[in-house]
Each structure stands twice: as structure tokens, then as C-alpha cells.
């Protein structure tokens, strides 16, 4: 991976806008002197402030295909470009409070295991990413496991891949951890996102404990994560199995605003969020072969599940009201 390239930041100050005006003036003078617009702009480019020149160079670099996409399809430039939108959700919309971010390993492999909620479009992975990127002393881009179905859809599939999502499968998780990446998994899967609002914050079954097998095989530390607030963004009141089957979706939720308000119903409710990264569960005493020990896998899976459930209750109490 060739990430971590220095990228220029763009911001327009008073000085810059003067330079911009000078640039436009020079272009106009050039055109009036009988030069074609493109050449005139090229000649005038020298008067542009360096930030603008840098920005143009960044765009050019991308248009030439010289950017930091890795072989998994994660595109750091793209992730940074959509960062402001998620920062808005993180800071203003959901006012996320984060504790224990130092429990996330600063380097080397690590498996973040969290509860999963947000029926229509789960934002927990993106908010956990924001927490690691903004609060951790050594920020790093985590990769996350996404429901397979998302990778069949146009636009969503390439978007998910570019921001670090991969189809949820033990093969992908294992390969990423072997590359010493930070991987987020949501063992509840669709059972977590698809549960009705009345069952909010009650953890569902943790699959078959596949994430524990992967962690044991790759000798990765497990960090349980409790996310509070994600359940209220799209409260699922009912379900439309017929419609879901028609589009091939695992489920199609009906929320107070969706599909009643149409596209407006896609705006998530501004609940108050808390994310707690718990202390890592050390499984290094077990050899990789222990992954075949069903009993041990279930024990560790249950331990992780109980840790997350307990922390969810703690954070629910600490949060108080869901929206204010």
C-alpha cells in the first residue's frame, strides 16, 4: 500500500481570492489579445496561489490514475474526500462521545467487534472509523466487514470498497488481519440491524463465532466495542418481506419517516451517540489450532458478547435521553 502521501489542503483566504481575481483578469487580457482561452489560462496559471496550484495538481494526479488505491480497493484519497460529510454527522448530528479509544491497537493487527444497529443504513462502522481517525493519538483507517448484498448493488458497492469495506467473509477478514490491518466486524449481522425498535440494545446471537476463529487463527487481539445511539437513527417499526424479496434485500424496514417521506425518510434521526472501546481480550495464550475447538470458540464469543452488552447498558445510563 502506498498510502500516507502528503496531500495539499485547500482553503480560500482573503489573499487567495485576490490572487484568483488577478488570475481571471490575466485570462481575460489574454483572450482579448487574441489567445485561445485554454492557452491564456495556462499562461495565467503562474499567478495562482500555491494552494490552488497544489489542488489542481492533486486533481491531475488522480486523473492520471496515480493515487493510493490498494489491492483491496480502499482509496485513501476518496475516503478523505468524503470525510467532511461524516465529520458533520459525527460532531454535529450525533454528537458522538468516545471513551477508551486508546484500547485500539496503534499498529499491527486487531479485531474490533461491535454491536450492529441502524436498520436502513447502519452508520456504526463509519462512526467507529471517525472515532479512531479523530480521537486516537495514532489515527489509522480501519477496514470493515459489510453485508454481502451491498456488493451486488451499483454505486454502493464501489463506494463501500473505496472507503475500506469488504464483503463479510472469514477469508477476507483473515487475509486483512494477516496484512496487519485493523478490522471491524459486526457478528450480529443482519439479525442486529433487522431487529424491531422494541428490541433495541438487546444483543442478538453472535453468528457461529466465526470472528473468534479468525482471531485465533491470525493471533489477533479482540477489542469489544459498545455503540449506543445507532438504534435510534432509523427506528424499525415494521417490515415489508414481500418488497424485500422483490429487490433481493435481506429485509426492508419501515421507519416513522421511511418510506412515508420518500427520500427525506433516508435522513437519519439525530440521536445522541456514545462509543466505548473496551479493554482488549487477550487470546494469545491459545495456539492458532485452538480455532477448531468449538467449546473455546463459543466461550470467547460469549465473553465478548457479555462485555459489549454490559457496556451498552452502562453507556445507555450515562447518555440519558436518546435525542438531547
Amino acid at each position, binding site marked *: 500500500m502506498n498510502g500516507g502521501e502528503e496531500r495539499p489542503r485547500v482553503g480560500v483566504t482573503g489573499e487567495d481570492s485576490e490572487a484568483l481575481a488577478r488570475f481571471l483578469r490575466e485570462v481575460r487580457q489574454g483572450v482579448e489579445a487574441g489567445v485561445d482561452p485554454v492557452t491564456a489560462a*495556462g499562461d495565467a496559471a503562474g499567478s495562482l496561489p500555491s494552494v490552488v496550484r497544489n489542488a489542481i495538481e492533486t486533481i491531475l494526479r488522480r486523473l*492520471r490514475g496515480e493515487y493510493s488505491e490498494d489491492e483491496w480497493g480502499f482509496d485513501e484519497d476518496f475516503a478523505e474526500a468524503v470525510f467532511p460529510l461524516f465529520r458533520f454527522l459525527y460532531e454535529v448530528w450525533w454528537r458522538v462521545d468516545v471513551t477508551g479509544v486508546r484500547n485500539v491497537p496503534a499498529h499491527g493487527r486487531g479485531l474490533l467487534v461491535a454491536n450492529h444497529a441502524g436498520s436502513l443504513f447502519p452508520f456504526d462502522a463509519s462512526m467507529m472509523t471517525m472515532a479512531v481517525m479523530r480521537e486516537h493519538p495514532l489515527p489509522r483507517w480501519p477496514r470493515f466487514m459489510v453485508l454481502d448484498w451491498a456488493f451486488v448493488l451499483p454505486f454502493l458497492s464501489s463506494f463501500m470498497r473505496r472507503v475500506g469495506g469488504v464483503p463479510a467473509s472469514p477469508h477476507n477478514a483473515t487475509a486483512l488481519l494477516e496484512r496487519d490491518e485493523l478490522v471491524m466486524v459486526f457478528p450480529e449481522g443482519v439479525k442486529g440491524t433487522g431487529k424491531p425498535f422494541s428490541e433495541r440494545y438487546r444483543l442478538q446471537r453472535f453468528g457461529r463465532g466465526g470472528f473468534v476463529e479468525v482471531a485465533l487463527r491470525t493471533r489477533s487481539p479482540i477489542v469489544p466495542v459498545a455503540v449506543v445511539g445507532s438504534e435510534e437513527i432509523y427506528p424499525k417499526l415494521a417490515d415489508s418481506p414481500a418488497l424485500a424479496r422483490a429487490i433481493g434485500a435481506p429485509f426492508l424496514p419501515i421507519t416513522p419517516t421511511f418510506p412515508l417521506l420518500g427520500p427525506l425518510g433516508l435522513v437519519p434521526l439525530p440521536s445522541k451517540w456514545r462509543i466505548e472501546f473496551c479493554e482488549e481480550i487477550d487470546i494469545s495464550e491459545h495456539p492458532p489450532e485452538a480455532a477448531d475447538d468449538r467449546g473455546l470458540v463459543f466461550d470467547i464469543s460469549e465473553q465478548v458478547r457479555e462485555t459489549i452488552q454490559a457496556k451498552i447498558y452502562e453507556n445507555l445510563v450515562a447518555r440519558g435521553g436518546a435525542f438531547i
Partner: protein
Amino acid sequence: MTGGRRVAITGISGHWGGELASLLARDERVEYVVGIDTRPPPGDLGDVDFIEADLRSAVISRLLPPTEIDTLVHCGILWYPEPGKPTRSLHDFNVIGTLQLLAACERTPTIDRVVMRGSAAIYGCEGAAPLFFTEELAGNMPLRTRFQRDVSELEGYFENFSRRHPQISSCMLRFQPEVGADLDAPMVRYLSLPAVPTQLGYDPRLQLLDADDATSALEAAVWSDIRGPVNIAPSGAVSLSRILRMGGRPSIPIPHPLFGPAVERFGAGFGAGPLVNDAVRLLRFGRGVDNARMRREMGFEPKRDAVEAVRELMRRLDGRRVGPPLHPGALLGRLAGSGR
């Protein structure tokens, strides 16, 4: 053995059979090379014997044993049509041809090495597929195109054959699509269009193998003793959007049901021709394979990784560009005064 190896190569009139034959004909470890195909090779391959035979018929079982070969390389598994092998007969060439050839091998007691030039299409093309398939993951994904099913079927025959004949060291090479400026293949012609149709909303991850590396890998497999399936692919993967940007080619996004016909119609104007069904699917979902077995067990390291293979292809294709560079990058480059 007193002399060197005695090698038979099927599909010798195609690109890969021909390349391998001319390499082996010059190799002093090789005593005798014979090519088998339905028509004579188009160019001069050097000191190479030729047998005109159609693999789809049982005649190969009578022609192969008298050659007393010890190595067989099957380059007759075709992804796209070639002269004399139209699209509608590809299934017969691929499946029946392989079946007849394996039967002929059973009747040729001198054989001790079989190399099959297969395809990574056996892994299918799915959005939710593992991002890097390892060899044992074949059969985990549904097979949706004719070619995928053909490859899966003939790999079944091959597996049977290698189980029944443990004394023969046999391997199945699963190639990712090859590209090269000198390679006359639908994928190369597609990528050399002045503006390239893509499928709206999809951006497949591709592993395009440099044609020189593909030939070297085939040769390396002949000399190695590796058995069973081996993925042949460059390291890394590149998305189609990045490939097109590296080539300075604008994309024309088209809703995916119309993509195939659009390429055919648009490509015809530039002599590019249609893509096979399997390539259309590949250009929607992409596919990545893990090449660790090739690098560690077969001991072959490709010269170019996925990014360099594309860069080299685009650099060479640029010389034959049709029309002016249309890409916004080229235009903006002039604007900023740092154009190229």
C-alpha cells in the same frame, strides 16, 4: 531419459501455444517439440513438428502415442474465439477437446508431466466473492456464464485424471485475463478504445496479467514439478476506473443490461469487436486471486504487478491511439501548464 524432453503442445496456432513452442524449440533441454491444432501455425516457430488434428474427435488417441512425448501442454482452453474456432463451438473445443486429450494421455505411457492452461473463471464473478481466491476456494461461488461452467466441468475431468494417474505429475494453471500491446484479444481491444464503455455504478477490481509474464509462467510450469491447481496472476489488483485514468481514456457509463450490445456496436467502429459474455460479467464484478502458491511453490515471480502491467499496456497502446486525447486530465493538464 537419454536426450531432452519430448513435448507436445495443443493449440499451437493460438498465441500461447505458439509462444511456448518457439521458446521450447530453442531450449537445449528439449529434444523434440510437436504442435497439435486444427490449422498450421501462422508464423515460423523454429524446429517444431506439426500434427493437424481436431481435439474434439477421438483421432487424437491414435496420433498422440506414436510421438512418444513425455510432456503435454494443453493450450486449447479458449476464453474467446480464434480463427477457425467460432464462439458457438468454444464449448466443444474446451470441454470435449480436453476430455479427448486426457483420454489420449491415458493411452500414451511415456507421459510423465501434464500442464493444463486453464482459467481463473472457475471462481466465478460475484460482487460478494472473497477479494483474493485461494486455490481451494473453487466451487464456492455460483457459476453463471458458459465459460465458467465449461472450466468447472473440464477441471472435474482433470481432477479425475490426476487422481487415477498419480505417477503423472499434472497441474492446472488458472490464468487471470492477459493483456499486452501485441496480444490480439478482446480485452486488449476493449481497453484500446478511445473512450471506453463501463457499467454504470460498478467499478470492478481486475488483475490483468502481462502477456510476457503469462508466457514465462507457462514455461515455468513445464519445468516445475507442481501438482494440482495454481493461480497465475500478478500481485495486487487495480480498479477499472483507475486503469482508464492511467490510460487517459474517458469512460462512458452505460446501464449494465445494455453494456454488452453497446461495446459491440461502439467497438465495431474501431475494429474492436464484441466481448464474450464472461468478460462482460468480469467487467461488472471483477475478480481477484491469491498468487502465493505460484510464487512460493512454483517459484515463479511475475515481472510486473497488476499496476505495472496496466501501465506498460497503456504506454504501448498510446502509440496507436485513435483520435485526440479526450480525457479531462489531458485538458486540465494544459490548463495548469503542467500538461503531458
